[in-house]
């Protein structure tokens, strides 16, 4: 077995073990499930996107991104994807890695000014994942990467539909050092990670739905015997397959040349999100009323999907970006555009 496959398998065991129903319920109740985070950190997963030279342990980027997909499959209520990304940016910029949970945000909405030998960063960042629990905030503005360890206060606590923290942060921080900004923008990287999480969660939704329609009996047979149910399930399977392929495309773009990543990630993002909406509607329908309760596990995944599909830029934003580029290619240039975009 390859190192990558071994890592994924170990992470799968860890998630299955630590992110059990009790942990999910606690996280949904607003608790930071610290012992699960510690176990994940212990395994080194938050460093998976950091190169070996920068203090990582040499995980291939595609394997690291497979971890994000797996985290999605568990609707992991912890900022693993965010911390991986933040550490990846810190490592690439030659800055010290984060000691705990971290997130990477775009500096575009902040004021960044030279002060003494360093920089002062001020402003408000909206809906930062797990802001209340972060040890480190990483800001990238296209030219520089900054590491912020102190000087942030939560201005407003909020959560997404899956009770994952999305807080507004008031920032007034001084950074002594900065590094170059490399790779794609925080928004593109964030959207790519969300696509992977979506693909993972959809696989769980499909598995739950297959299990449910096979077990549930009405009219003397299991639901899976009804053709109408089979066809809806086939449609769900199609959505999951499409989202999976879109997520692979986003992952490859993220692992490849940053100059060529934008359109592929935009396309993957749009497509995975649309599939998520369609798939969740089918899964909820096929589960009946039990799926519409907090007793059943389904909602952990569907609520996460309903939020992830609107985070890191909305669908309108990404469609506009891709549509603008396609229109600029013109009718005669459209096909060439499609073959070169991804």
């Amino acid at each position: 077995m390859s190192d990558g496959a071994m890592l994924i398998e170990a992470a799968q065991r860890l998630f299955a073990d630590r992110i059990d129903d009790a942990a999910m319920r606690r996280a949904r109740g607003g608790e930071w499930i610290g012992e699960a985070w510690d176990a994940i950190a212990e395994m080194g997963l938050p460093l998976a996107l950091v190169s070996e030279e920068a203090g990582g342990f040499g995980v291939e980027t595609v394997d690291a991104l497979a971890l994000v997909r797996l985290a999605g499959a568990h609707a992991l209520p912890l900022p693993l994807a965010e911390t991986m990304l933040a550490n990846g940016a810190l490592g690439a910029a030659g800055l010290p890695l984060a000691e705990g949970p971290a997130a990477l945000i775009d500096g575009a909405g902040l004021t960044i000014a030279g002060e003494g030998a360093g920089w002062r960063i001020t402003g408000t960042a909206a809906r930062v994942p797990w802001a209340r629990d972060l040890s480190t905030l990483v800001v990238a503005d296209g030219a520089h990467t900054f590491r912020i360890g102190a000087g942030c206060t939560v201005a407003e606590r909020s959560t997404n539909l899956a009770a994952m923290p999305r807080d507004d942060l008031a920032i007034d921080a001084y950074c002594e050092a900065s590094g170059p900004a490399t790779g794609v923008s925080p928004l593109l990287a964030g959207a790519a990670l969300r696509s992977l999480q979506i693909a993972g969660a959809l696989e769980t939704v499909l598995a739950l739905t297959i299990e449910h329609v096979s077990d549930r009996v009405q009219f003397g047979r299991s639901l899976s015997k009804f053709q109408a149910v089979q066809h809806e399930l086939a449609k769900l399977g199609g959505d999951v397959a499409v989202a999976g392929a879109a997520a692979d495309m986003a992952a490859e773009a993220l692992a490849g040349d940053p100059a060529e990543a934008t359109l592929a990630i935009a396309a993957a993002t749009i497509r995975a999100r649309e599939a998520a909406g369609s798939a969740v509607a089918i899964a909820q329908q096929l589960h009946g009323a039990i799926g519409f309760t907090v007793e059943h596990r389904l909602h952990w995944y569907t609520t996460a999907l309903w939020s992830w599909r609107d985070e890191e830029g909305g669908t309108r934003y990404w469609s506009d970006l891709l549509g603008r580029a396609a229109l600029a290619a013109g009718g005669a240039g459209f096909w060439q555009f499609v073959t070169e975009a991804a």
Partner: protein
Amino acid sequence: MMDAIRFSSPPRHEAAEALRHEVRAFLAETIPARTPLARSDSWNGYDRDFSRKMGARGWLGMTWPKQYGGHERSAFERYVVVEETLAAGAPVLSHWIADRQSGPTLLRFGTEEQKGRVLPGIAAGETCFCIGMSEPDSGSDLAATRTRAVRSADGWRITGTKIWTSNAHNADYMILFCRSGDSTPADRQAGTSQFLIDMKNTPGLTVRPIIDLAGQHHFNECHFEDALVPAGALIGTEGQGWQQVMSELAFERSGPERFLSSIQLIVELIAALQGSDSDLARAAIGRLTAHLIVLRRLSRSVAAMLEAGENPALHAAIVKDQGALFEQAIPDIARSLIDAEPDRAATSNYNAVLANIVLNAPSWSLRGGTREILRGIIARGLGLR
């Protein structure tokens, strides 16, 4: 279970990408004057001369052994040729069916004599095929075929009617699927065989046109009345027709023709939107572009599976189902962005192409396996019975 519907990453193939430029240059030079309306016929466009030129370039039978006129190139190179010709709306019908499925079926199951006689002509773009599967009482339920071949002293005597046979009026050969023995209550699919039918020289075979909804003569009814074919017309093994025909379907279901049927409408739509500053239009074009990019990835992934010798029947069904949803959604997206009355005779390319696409769209979720049949295959692939 989840692995069953994962599509592996299609590899980047340098030779295929180089070929792409050659094909584009060839198309630009060979069909520069083809109208948008004609291009929107997609793979229904018929032009023997064009097919011969494709053959002369070595772009038909590309993956087949050289001894049968093939070129021993990869499935990826073939894929590029196929998608580029379709995207350009080139008139591919004369070679299309033979290159896609009849040739591969013969290559796999045909006798030496059949292969030597027929394959080189396909690769040269000279030989045109049609598919004889559907019958009046046997559509989705292919095993219900009633056309019957009976062994005789001089070969086989065939009686029955095939219907919806695309391009039968032009084709040189048909691969006929029919009954050659009896089914059993336990096995409805038993007792079927495939035959190579010479469309031009089979006494007792008559081909009648059926005009389709779009007003075109595309498909036909093919009636066999005690038609005599030689003993050597049997393809593969007597009684194995079902297994043979099923292996043909993965080739028939996963290609780019399953999502490019309405590409010409997208092209005209984008052309018509030039200069507009509608953010509604940008978002809509962005969305459909995303769909197309991902569909193309799925289809290329299936091509890789075929190249590796796997049988991606489930994946092919997913591609065709998703592809048809996409193709059929395009007219409504276009209609939401531009007000135009569909009219094939219109001088506006957009209006004419819209008409052709609207009229032909219903067929895309029927031919090659209906949406409902595909969904059944996918559900079974996911473990449901």
